[in-house]
């Protein structure tokens, strides 16, 4: 158990926008197969943290260690790193000029340099996994929100990333579509995909994850197993946050 190496080690990570210090001294690790949930109030820096991990934002301090390498160093090949750390966005961000199929193939073809046939097979494989294979000919604007998000997940999966980041994947969805996306994520969890999920779906966080990170005002306020956080929170702030959420 002790010999497992983390996929990602976040060390003393900080980020400021101008004078606004948004992340302070963030420390945590993601091991293979881990399903980590990041919860916290709006504005606590959850999205910023995910975006820093994917280098969509440049952290202002600290380290992100991947494969024993700090990816914040100058000479690091950022696109190659991003290909291994997938991301699913709240607003889907599917390519509007491509069909569902092309959306899932383009990364394999143009980034991983795989053959067209291989890319096609992978795209279909992962689209089937999320139940969107029948829609390969559709354009994103012809799909519902839940369908778009499932395609976005398939697109990320087709890259076969080591870890997949989710930033509030269900927040832009109507209630009846939330379920279909969470269902897909549950099945990915069962298959052992390493995931780092920002969500407000507390039931999902409690049932599916094995590590919960509670953030408040740019710092990790409390961190532990779902039981530790949801059943026996140690910090007053955590308790307050959870009670507000559970009452909703």
């Amino acid at each position, binding site marked *: 158990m002790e010999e497992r190496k983390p996929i990602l080690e976040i060390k003393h990570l900080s980020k400021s926008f101008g004078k606004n210090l948004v992340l302070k001294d963030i420390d945590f690790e993601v091991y293979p197969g881990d399903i980590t949930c990041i919860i916290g109030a709006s504005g606590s820096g959850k999205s910023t943290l995910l975006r820093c991990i994917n280098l969509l934002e440049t952290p202002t301090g600290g380290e992100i260690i991947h494969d024993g390498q700090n990816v914040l160093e100058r000479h690091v090949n950022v696109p190659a790193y991003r290909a291994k750390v997938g991301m699913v966005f709240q607003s*889907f961000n599917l390519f509007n000029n491509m*069909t569902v199929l092309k959306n899932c193939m383009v*990364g394999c073809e143009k980034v991983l340099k795989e053959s067209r046939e291989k890319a096609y097979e992978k795209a279909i494989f992962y689209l089937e996994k999320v139940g969107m*294979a*029948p*829609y390969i*000919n559709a354009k994103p604007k012809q799909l519902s929100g839940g369908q778009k998000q499932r395609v976005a997940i398939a697109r990320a999966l087709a890259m076969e990333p080591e870890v997949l980041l989710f930033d509030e994947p269900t927040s832009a969805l109507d209630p009846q579509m939330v379920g279909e996306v969470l269902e897909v994520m549950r099945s990915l969890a069962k298959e052992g995909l390493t995931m780092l999920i920002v969500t407000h779906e507390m039931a999902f966080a409690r049932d599916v994850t094995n590590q919960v990170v509670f953030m408040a005002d740019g710092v990790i306020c409390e961190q532990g197993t779902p039981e530790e956080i949801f059943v026996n929170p140690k910090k007053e702030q955590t308790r307050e946050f959870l009670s507000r959420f559970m009452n909703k």
Partner: protein
Amino acid sequence: MLPPDFLGRLLFLLDRYGVSLLQGAGRTLIIAIIGTVIGCLIGFVVGIIQTIPVSKNDNMFKKIILKIVRIILAIYVEVFRGTPMMVQAMFIYYGSLQYLGVDMTMWAAAIFIVSINTGAYMAETVRGGILSIDRGQTEGAAAIGMNHFTTMVYVVLPQALRNIMPQIGNNLIINIKDTCVLSVISVVELFFVSKGIAGAYYTYFETFTLTMVIYLIMTVVCSRLLMLLERKMDGPDTYDLATTDTLAHTSGMMSYSAKKGGR
């Protein structure tokens, strides 16, 4: 010899000079179309260079080169947007003749001037088109490991091109009309031909009635064709659902067929 009534004169002119007018119209169209296409290519190159992101980590050399190129391009855009094409035509044609010893052919001069002029306009349009693409698109591309170049080629530019199609059409229409200023350097396009015909029998009104109609036909047909092209770029409004049956044979990608269904 010359019929006394308006209609008779039109027919007379058509009979006598119809072929010359059509030749002139053909030249106008060719210059306008080629000029617009090359102008768009110039516009894309300039627009793309103007939107290359520079990060703090880039080396000094790249930053300086980019800066110099951008200044030159900005000057190009300002100069050619800020002066009349008719003046540019005189300036370039006689300048190259007297000081560079280059005697441009009619075609070369015409196409060069229209292209470079259109390029200056399109540069700004393309830049705007690129900047108008939602940041989510580039972030989506970045998240699957695409670099700037790949993102531009497969994600941003196709969408930008689609969005600026109306402006490209606009430029084509403008070019069809504005090639007439090239008559100052004796490019034998529709206006130049018309002037010659009108002078021969002193039939200015009749000749330019025909010329008006020909210009109008060219511009209307072109704008309709471009609209069709836009519609084609958008793809079908509906999609076919693929059946599990067809998907089972994933190896035969090229022979893949979708069954009718969907909405």
